């Protein structure tokens, strides 16, 4: 019998353990559908704000050794537009990512989705390149607790808090999100970084500083997943540099119940989901696992 690839992240059940990471390809229902069909167990939307944002001028994404630097500037069509756009959806497991500065921002946005089929919310507490939102919020544990509590009070769907590496110890941010009632944690977002073109002597990104993603950050992300799941009793979704089934299994062994994939799509296209899923299934068969849950956090036994 082929192994069961479904997984549980707290109360959230996914058919497959690979998800589309926030900010990658996610602005239309048709594209979400295509990515779902290509094997993703869920898709996370671009982080949505109250109003539409154009984002920064280009260059916003540059390839570097080991991954990408990006400072897209959270360009998105805004939560109201987006909620209307995805409202016909019945079949795609969509997780809505939200970004804002204060509780009221999130309150406003969650209201937009009241009558829309949403699988979960992912609160972006970790974007490293836009002022007053993302990581600046994640760095303020009191604010994190308040925001999570607010969203939790408004909806029955699970709340996932996405953390990154800011100036506050991210483990304190995780704790703050748990105090607010978060159902799960995604770790990690991109890591603040920059690159400079030596020929023109200018920063590569228009915003100068951006976030690093891709294989370069994987060991850091694996460490974070391991630390979070060792320290707290909370389901974790691993994110950062997954491009092969080995990467995904590594995150699962570190304590992740599922993984998100972003940058790898730029290198190997959306086939990456089915390839990683297939690789995980083969591995499970070889090692005699019948469920993903049996593997979660095994590396912590040592």
């Amino acid at each position: 019998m082929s192994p069961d690839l479904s997984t549980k992240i707290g109360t959230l059940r996914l058919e497959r353990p690979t998800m589309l990471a926030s900010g990658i390809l996610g602005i239309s229902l048709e594209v979400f559908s295509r990515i779902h069909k290509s094997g993703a167990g869920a898709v996370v939307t671009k982080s949505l704000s109250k109003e539409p944002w154009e984002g920064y001028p280009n260059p916003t994404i540059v390839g570097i050794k080991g991954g990408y630097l990006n400072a897209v500037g959270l360009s998105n069509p805004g939560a109201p537009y987006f909620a209307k756009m995805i409202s016909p959806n019945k079949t795609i497991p969509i997780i809505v990512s939200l970004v804002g500065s204060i509780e009221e921002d999130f309150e406003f946005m969650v209201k937009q989705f009241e009558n829309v089929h949403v699988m979960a919310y992912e609160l972006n507490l970790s974007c490293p390149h836009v002022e007053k939102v993302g990581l600046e919020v994640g760095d303020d544990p009191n604010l994190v607790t308040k925001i999570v509590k607010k969203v939790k009070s408004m909806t029955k769907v699970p709340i996932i808090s996405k953390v990154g590496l800011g100036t506050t110890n991210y483990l304190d941010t995780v704790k703050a999100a748990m105090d607010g009632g978060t159902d799960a944690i995604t770790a990690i977002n991109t890591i603040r970084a920059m690159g400079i073109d030596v020929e023109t002597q200018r920063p590569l990104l228009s915003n100068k500083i951006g976030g690093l993603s891709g294989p370069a950050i994987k060991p850091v992300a694996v460490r974070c997943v391991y630390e979070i799941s060792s320290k707290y009793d909370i389901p974790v979704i691993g994110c950062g540099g997954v491009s092969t089934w080995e990467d995904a299994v590594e995150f699962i062994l570190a304590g992740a119940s599922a993984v998100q994939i972003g940058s790898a799509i730029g290198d190997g296209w959306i086939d990456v989901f089915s390839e990683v899923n297939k690789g995980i299934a083969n591995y499970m068969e070889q090692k005699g696992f019948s469920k993903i849950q049996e593997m979660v956090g095994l590396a912590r036994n040592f």
Partner: protein
Amino acid sequence: MDLQEISNRSSIRVIEKIIDETPTVRTLVFSDDTLSNVLPGQFAMVWIPGVNELPMSVMVSEEKGKAAFTVRKRGVSSTALYDLQVGNQIGVRGPYGNSFRIKDGKILLVGGGTGLVPLLRLAKFAKPTNEVIILMGSKTKEEMFFEDMANKILAKNKHQVITCTEDGSYGKKGFVTDVMEALMQDTKFDGIYTCGPEIMMYKVVQMANSKNTFVEASLERMMKCGIGICGSCCMDESLVCHDGTVFDGQFLAKSQEFGHTHRTKSGILENY
């Protein structure tokens, strides 16, 4: 990994020559072995340091080892590219996207403005046995360019360059699509290729489809990454930078967005 890095990070190039095509269109020539050999329809992301990075089709250059961009000044960024001087630096990465599939036999190229850029490269890739008709349109005589270039590129082929202007100041009077309709009355083409304003392409594709003639169009959508990560170029379920920019008539006939809507920088659908 090395290859990825090479193609996804800009290489700095120096503008060597500038050709004024019209009062608002210029061709900037630079040395680049990779870009000088791209397939017809492929594009590059062009970094104007300190300003922006834009998608641009790669123009053919008559000199070996050289590539070019032909830019029309529109907003701030394309104007900054247009205003560059010989000796200025730009960054280029690519080539990206797919390319036209050139059919045997008699082919028709329909374009306007900078949409002619990929079509001229297609002309360059035409087989010696292809008979090629290029239909180029502009508003006025002043805005017509690339006619000589087209004749030169197709010197070895049986060919014809037909020009038309909306005000009748040069060539035939009318829209390229009117001229195309007349042409299709008595000529059967084996392939039709188009690039230019979307409304024009929409009509070209409709006409070709109605006659069951193979047709391909190279589309433009808002592009930020150019490599299938950011999603800004999506059209229906396609990512134009990755799955296109060239799509065929059968595919386009099913599109909800082609000829009707495109997305803004924030991702909101807007009517053409």
